[in-house]
């Protein structure tokens, strides 16, 4: 054992280093949809510098309310801008929405394993997002735009339930105008104004243009969506090893100590949230894991 007893008197800070958030100030709040919003955070002294890798998340803390894991969705090349896109689904996310510009929010992170964007260089990229699943993938899109020459064909397939659920509208519009990226957006149910695709996002896979022998796919959305998207990708000849998914479970600590985010042998906060599909493909089929 490395930790042998000794007889030194002990003093300790009750505050556990792993659990101390850094306080940030809310700089901007942008409404994305009825239940989803994006906040920009700035360091208290105004000099924000938050390095992170695409796919990593922070534990965001509302004083007196609680903490939630939220993926970082800004440009990894611009650490002076810290963005999170949040859907109001529980007490803490609703409490964050009630905060105003200038209010403070605690941040712990960045935590977790990233999307393997460097290993995907020289390949076609397929990004498939469902609903708010586009947020953890947005840093990947930024990275690719920053390093466009390092990648071959890029397809972004995005599906939401309804047109009103689409987030990052402005950014999607600007992507649509680019000739070096194929963007497809689909909705499960259209409204009268919708002129685009209708149907679940998996239906877009067979129309997208990629070389199955030399492609990496990044999927993020509800588990059922990722499962069927991965199946559709495999039907196009993509090997499971070249598909990556981002998983989600209840998290209390974000640092592998609280036990909540176990996914059998994996601890999602530190072994994930990004996983190679090949390592989870049997589990993702099972219920209540």
């Amino acid at each position, binding site marked *: 054992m490395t930790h042998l007893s000794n007889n030194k008197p*002990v003093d300790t800070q*009750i505050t556990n280093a792993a659990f*101390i958030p850094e306080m940030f100030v809310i700089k901007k709040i942008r409404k994305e949809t009825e239940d989803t919003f994006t906040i920009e955070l700035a360091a208290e002294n105004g000099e924000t510098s938050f390095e992170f890798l695409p796919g990593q998340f922070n534990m965001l803390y509302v004083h*007196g309310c*609680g903490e939630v894991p939220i993926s970082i969705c800004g440009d990894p090349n611009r650490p002076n801008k810290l963005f999170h896109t949040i859907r109001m689904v529980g007490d803490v996310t609703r409490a964050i929405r009630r905060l105003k510009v200038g209010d403070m929010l*605690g941040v712990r992170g960045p935590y977790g394993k990233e999307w393997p964007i460097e290993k995907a260089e020289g390949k076609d990229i397929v990004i498939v997002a469902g609903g708010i699943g586009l947020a953890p993938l947005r840093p990947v899109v930024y990275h690719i735009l920053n390093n466009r020459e390092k990648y071959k064909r890029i397809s972004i397939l995005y599906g939401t339930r309804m047109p009103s659920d689409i987030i990052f509208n402005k950014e999607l519009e600007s992507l649509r105008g680019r000739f070096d990226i194929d963007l497809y957006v689909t909705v499960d149910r259209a409204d009268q104004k919708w002129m685009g695709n209708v149907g679940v996002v998996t239906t877009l896979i067979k129309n997208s243009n990629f070389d199955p022998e030399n492609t990496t796919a990044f999927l993020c959305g509800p588990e059922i969506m990722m499962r069927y998207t991965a199946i559709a990708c495999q039907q196009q000849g993509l090997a499971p090893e070249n598909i990556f998914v981002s998983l989600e479970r209840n998290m209390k600590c974000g*640092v592998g100590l*609280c036990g*909540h985010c176990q996914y059998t042998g994996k601890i999602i906060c530190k072994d994930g949230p990004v996983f190679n599909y090949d390592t989870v493909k049997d589990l993702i089929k099972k219920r209540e894991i």
Partner: protein
Amino acid sequence: MSKLKITKDTKYTVNKDAIESLLTELKKQKFKTIGPIVRDETIIYDELENINDLPIGLTDVHEAGSYRLKEREDKALFGYNVGPFSFKKYLFPPKLTILKSKRVDGKIKIIKENESVEKLAFFGVKPCELHAILIQDKIFIEGEYIDNYYKKQRDSLFIVTTNCTEAGSSCFCTSTKTGPSADKGFDIAITELLDGDRHNFIIEAGTKNGLKILKELPLVEASKNDLDTAEQKIKSASENMGRSLDTSNLVELLLGNLNHPHWDDIAKRCLSCGNCTMVCPTCFCSNIQDVTSLTGDENERVRTWDSCFSMEYSYIHGGAVRASNKSRYRQWMTHKLASWQEQFQTLGCVGCGRCIVWCPVGIDITKETKAILKQVTAQAEQSAQAEN
């Protein structure tokens, strides 16, 4: 004091008075000694004043869903197995403030304050309990992130192990290789020898700190006879475990059969009360909650033990991931016996049998594992026959 040269690799014989001296010596060295005492008709761990606090002449009788104290025919100090408490609560407290913060003029301030931690000595640590501590070390101080409360408490900890010379009816530490004697992790180890009027103890030091204390005790080098007797007793305990668990293929057996119908069978009995997780000496899950003043300005973040048997445990937007009783029991048991191995390269079970004893409906982790194994094997044989 004798002129005997005291070394780490030698075993010595002492009498009962030396055990009292050991407690005194620990006190002299400013340790707060935690050990077995009798309370509410159970043997639990709390502060020990002297040797008379020990459960002298008592033993505990275990069965699935049942725990009773019984008088022994002798005056053994350590003639019991395990009660509902483990030493876990001292290193990983059931309730701990991990952060204090305050709102002043609209700004949130994190309050950093120092609090001293008591120097603890655990006394009468059974080998399974010791292994449970070694397993929790892997989680809290040997991973990427450290739990610094655990580390501070652990770094100053002194451990006196007592090897088991009798196995209980719910014990299976031989199967999990965590007993009945300890081979590492202790400062001092004791084996009790009781034969008629002769009441002695084999004692040895495992660390320099242990050696320092040992040197203060009246020792004689253990005779071959005493050593043989001790070995014989431990061997007999090892061979007389009340239960057993085949640990050879647990990962494949349990994780390979996540949809096995036997999980439904267990779910019919399991009350999802979480007792097994509360008595387990290795279960480490925790929740964190904010406790605020009425104005909401002052706040403490409090970490409490949590249980994978609660619905809230797996709650994410939309509902609990593990909504069924079956999935929650499966999570606990597969974690303990199988996925723990992937996470921490060790079993999560030390064979103490507490989860069996303190389960109100007497669900037995060893029997359930055997049942799955039996059914899976039978099925495999059937399909092999069908192919022929």
